[in-house]
């Protein structure tokens, strides 16, 4: 039938542009525009809830103290603690202790990163080394690093070296294990894609393995920081005097020695605040950016 074969041919020749249009339509249907958050929405969903919770907690605290009326040196109210914080700021104790601790925590953490990252890459590369020292590293991660304080005092005396040693013993195993699990969790398909594209050895490590392991690595860094900070406070609390500078942990120990609960709470709240601020200003945005960029986080 010539008539039908003509119409058939017309359809066939018309197929190419149709196909392009259909494909473009499908692309438009299947991609959603990303919605960005307004400043107001950010305030309403992210800023307001914790602020309200904090105010509520302070009110409950004040109310409890007002009703029960305990001895102020055992359980001071938020107003007394606030006065103590202000006094410590004015006389310079708190800013000094904060700066000392923060400097040790951050520099100790950075040294830990510099040691742990190549160590983790080496262990990941070399199966024999991994089975040899993998369990030890996991064990060290579980061991509370303040358990090293007595040994460190014997080895390094009451010096900053003692504090750094304890911090490193706390942070390094966490970062190593974080990076290792980041490498373990790389989808095999990505490694295969990398190899098919011709990446091997150094190229595969830097262009595929490292970026692919980033989420696990970042989780390790986050935990490594937490361990640094905790170990530091533990070390400062236990090892006092000598050439060790006066940090937040030392302030805490001082409060206990003079039985002044307001000083103790000032130190505890400051330690807590540092943890929150570092998380909110540094790790949280970094993690969100990383995960959102990979489509692993919706909001």
């Amino acid at each position, binding site marked *: 039938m010539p008539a039908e074969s003509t119409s058939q041919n017309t359809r066939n020749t018309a*197929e*190419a542009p149709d*196909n*392009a249009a*259909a*494909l*473009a339509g*499908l*692309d438009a249907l*299947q*991609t959603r525009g*990303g919605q960005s958050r307004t400043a107001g929405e950010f305030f309403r969903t992210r800023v307001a809830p914790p602020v309200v919770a904090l105010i509520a907690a302070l009110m409950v605290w004040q109310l409890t103290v007002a009703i029960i009326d305990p001895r102020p040196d055992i359980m001071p109210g938020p107003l007394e603690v606030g006065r103590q914080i202000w006094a410590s700021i004015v006389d310079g104790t708190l800013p000094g202790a904060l700066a000392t601790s923060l400097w040790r925590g951050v520099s100790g953490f950075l040294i830990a990163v510099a040691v742990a990252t190549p160590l983790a890459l080496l262990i990941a590369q070399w199966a024999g080394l991994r089975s040899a020292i993998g369990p030890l590293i996991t064990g060290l991660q579980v061991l509370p690093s303040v358990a090293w304080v007595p040994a460190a005092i014997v080895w390094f005396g009451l010096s900053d070296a003692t504090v750094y040693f304890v911090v490193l013993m706390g942070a390094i195993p966490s970062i190593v294990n974080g990076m290792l699990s980041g490498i373990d969790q790389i989808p095999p*398909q*990505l490694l*295969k*894609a*990398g*190899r*098919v*594209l*011709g*990446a091997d050895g150094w*190229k595969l490590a830097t*262009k*595929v393995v490292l*970026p*692919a392991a*980033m989420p696990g690595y970042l989780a390790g860094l986050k935990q490594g920081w937490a361990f640094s900070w905790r170990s530091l406070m533990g070390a400062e609390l236990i090892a006092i005097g000598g050439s060790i500078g006066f940090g937040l942990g030392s302030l805490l120990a001082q409060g206990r020695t003079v039985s002044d609960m307001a000083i103790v709470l000032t130190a505890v709240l400051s330690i807590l605040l540092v943890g929150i601020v570092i998380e909110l200003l540094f790790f949280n945005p970094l993690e969100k950016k990383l995960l959102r*960029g*990979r*489509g*692993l986080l919706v909001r």
Partner: protein
Amino acid sequence: MTTTPSETVIRMENLGKTFSAEDGAVLQGLDLEIERGQFVALLGASGSGKTTLLNVVAGLEEPTEGSVTAPAQGAAMMFQDAGLFPWLTAGKNVELALELAGVPKAARKDRVQELLELVRLPSVADKRPHELSGGMRQRVGLARALAQEREVLLMDEPFSALDAITRDLLQEELLRIWEVTGRTIVFITHNVSEAVHLGQRVLLLSSRPGKIVEEWDTGPWKDPGSYGFEAVGQSREETLDQLTRTITHRLREEIGRHAR
């Protein structure tokens, strides 16, 4: 297409692959020759060693028996999952392939755009993979595979995770790109109509061990000026439908052999 007639790019002789003695051979006694510019569809049930066969051609795995001759430069490869790197934009994914292929930095940017235009995605260079649909990701994957400038393109069920509408459109796109680029394509699928629609040759692979049990040449039926379907008084569609049914029947027969 300007292809040199009968220039073999892939040759396998008595090829066999065994991973472990207790599992037996995955591939055995496989003979296959593929000519430059051919589109070969490889059909087989699960466990027929299709992926292993592609890995051997790509040089990712060594055969344990027989010999394989493939381009020394290796082959480009596409998977069911596009395998795009999620930390790179679509454009950077393609660019990385160019970089690893040794293309100088200055030439990369334009080439990336050319390749994305070839797969009809001219404006997604700055999008991350998760912002694209499955079909778009596969096209970026195709652009990345083409960036390698390899003679042979191996495709491991690239459309099997897509919805039917997208799959139909991408099949047409692949045929268009095949004609434009003149690549030699080995396309794995478990979908008989897809194999018949795309391949010039359809090869049926048996399972455990995998070897080629039958081959159909669909090329003549697709050529508009061909003799075949008029001779038997059928339209081209009818002829291809019939071929699809024949192959489906043969595939089921082959799978049925494994029943106990």
